[in-house]
């Protein structure tokens, strides 16, 4: 049954009070501001940090995380969560490494397609069986890890001839790492497609109020399955980037990217309850998270303090970037 809602805090005209335009704009740019502030802080700590080479390395490093977060952002916007992206990316690295010798250049699209299909299956399970996405993807995470272990024989699969994926390691115009450019392209492409088509309102409606969306005839189920499918494809593409970087595939290779990816989404200011947010925000969030993961130890913060700082900064960053006027109740 529907919970009787006494009053939606957001429904009050009173929210207009804290909504003068400049402040609104500011919240919109908060993720970017947080990013710049972090770069500035790291530069103060270690002036060497602010060199083109160093920043280029950050961009290259962040690429897989950006792609992972971009896909999962769609699911979060729909009000769900995807905990299986990292495990799926790990499995995809194994598959890619196994198939590269036979399929060559075709291996990349095939792996992305397979990952998309696996994502879609999870979406189907979520939609048809009515299991919360948290549970479906938690289960999916274990299952995909197991499959990756079995397929790879619990070992690393080396890529001897990495020429089909080597293009990702090139530099565009000598400065921009191809992987970063591709990550940007993926974000831009998905964002543009979503923005230009009815998908934008469908996704937001699903995230804000699934039942209202359904009763308006929005294809809620298809949108969700689609989101899972894209998320899977993104995991597959992130896996391609990882393989091109690691020259191998491993059953646990990307597992540790799960929480950073979710953190990237939330730090970007996308509401974890769904509806409000965007892929661009996740892009900024992924860069912030990468800077924290890589930047802190590089500028010489000891490991124990690094973790403490990471925890503190990430909480503060979310506090700054979340647009509270769009989210009624913080759980």
């Amino acid at each position, binding site marked *: 049954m529907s919970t009787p809602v006494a009053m939606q805090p957001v429904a009050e005209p009173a929210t207009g009070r804290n909504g003068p335009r400049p402040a609104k704009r500011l919240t919109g740019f908060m993720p970017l501001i947080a990013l710049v502030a972090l770069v500035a802080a790291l530069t103060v700590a270690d002036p*060497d940090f602010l060199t083109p080479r160093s920043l280029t390395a950050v961009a290259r490093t962040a690429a897989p995380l950006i792609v992972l977060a971009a896909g999962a952002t769609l699911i979060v916007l729909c009000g769900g969560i995807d905990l299986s992206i990292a495990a799926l990316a790990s499995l995809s690295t194994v598959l890619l490494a196994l198939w590269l010798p036979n399929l060559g250049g075709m291996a990349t699209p095939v792996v992305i397609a397979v990952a998309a299909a696996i994502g879609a299956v999870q979406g189907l399970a979520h939609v048809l069986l009515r299991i919360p996405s948290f549970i479906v993807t938690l289960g999916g995470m274990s299952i995909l890890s197991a499959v990756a272990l079995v397929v790879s024989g619990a070992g*690393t699969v*080396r890529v001897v001839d990495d020429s089909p994926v080597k293009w990702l390691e090139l530099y565009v115009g000598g400065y921009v790492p*191809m992987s970063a450019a591709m990550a940007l392209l993926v974000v831009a492409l998905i964002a543009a497609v979503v923005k230009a088509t009815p998908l934008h309102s469908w996704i937001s409606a699903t995230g804000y109020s699934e039942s209202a969306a359904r009763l308006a005839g929005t294809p809620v189920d298809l949108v969700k399955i689609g989101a899972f499918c894209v998320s899977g494809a993104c995991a597959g593409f992130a896996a391609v980037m990882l393989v091109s970087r690691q020259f191998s595939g491993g059953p646990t*290779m990307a597992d540790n*990217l799960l929480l950073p990816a979710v953190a990237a989404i939330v730090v970007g200011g996308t509401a974890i309850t769904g509806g409000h947010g965007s892929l661009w925000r996740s892009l900024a969030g992924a860069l912030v998270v990468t800077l924290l993961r890589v930047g802190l130890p*590089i500028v010489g913060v000891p490991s124990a303090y690094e973790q403490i700082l990471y925890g503190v900064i990430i909480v503060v960053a979310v506090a700054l970037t979340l647009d509270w006027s769009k989210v009624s109740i913080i759980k």
Partner: protein
Amino acid sequence: MRIAFRPTAALISLSLAAAALAGCSEQAAGDGDPAAAGACKPADVKLVGQVRNESNPYEASWLAGGDAFAKSVGLTQQRLTYGGDSTKQQEQISQILAGDTKCLVMNVLPNGDSDTAPIVKGADKAGAFLVTQWNKPADLNPADYKTWISHITYNGVESGKQIGDALAKSIGGSGGIIALQGVLDTAAAKDRFAGLQASLKENSGVQLLDQQTANFSRAEALTVTKTLLTKHGDKVKGIWAANDDMALGALEALQQAGRAGKVAVVGIDAVPDAVTAVQSGAMTATVSSDGTWQGGIGLAIGFCVATGKLEVKDIAADNRAFFAEQFLITKDNAADFAQPKTNPSDFDCANVFKRVAGPLK
């Protein structure tokens, strides 16, 4: 979504155009030439030690060893930890390599076999001096690279076999044992288990009742051991663990099951607690691997090459990838290993290869 559609489209076309027009290059602009060996003043050398985390005794002693060496040459070691996260390790390495790499010396513990190749290729491209330890795929050889000076590891097959034999001996040559495997996706885990299998072949009286992974973790070993103990009951005479942490977890499980002292336990790594346990007889055997030495020696080799006291081309092929000396520690010799004995002279450029037990097979 705040960013309008038009700028998005513009951005896409721009990046596409950039890709098409500017062409692509193999390297980021500004990548330096590989440093010429021996060009560095000792004070200019930058020492980096990278391990998984500071929260286990073995790796903590590694970093401490690195610090001690750095201090001995008047430098400091940059301590990096990546929390057992392969991607984070790569990210740190590429960030380090994006800085000044001219006199960079890295002593790295790759998270898994798969992580070694990108580290090596990155360091090679940037001209940083690199020593790796433990994990490396068999077909990747330092001899093929200019600045990857050496790869150091312990002979996992041999240690697995040694403790397997010791275990067989202590249970009187016959009876059931259970095996606790490490993280399945690592060479160390696989080699050590292969060693156990070799040992089982020779000791036909010993029967492997069950094998499960406990991921090198003390806590997981505790639960798995408890379950296996109830599954196999009194048939379990011995427990073979792929590292000491798991062996210590198994010891706790035995104590909780009221079977402490009745089941023999062996492990690998010689962490202080395990050595104490061997000394007191709670554990049967372990195999030494010396974290303090490993932390120092990698930097020492790199430092010697960077400062020109050692030429890469002069290093014997056998020393480019080698097994380090290791010892089976039993109750008899445990007292000798109670304190790690790292001699500063081990790190003299003339002595850095003193502990080579043999080339990597």
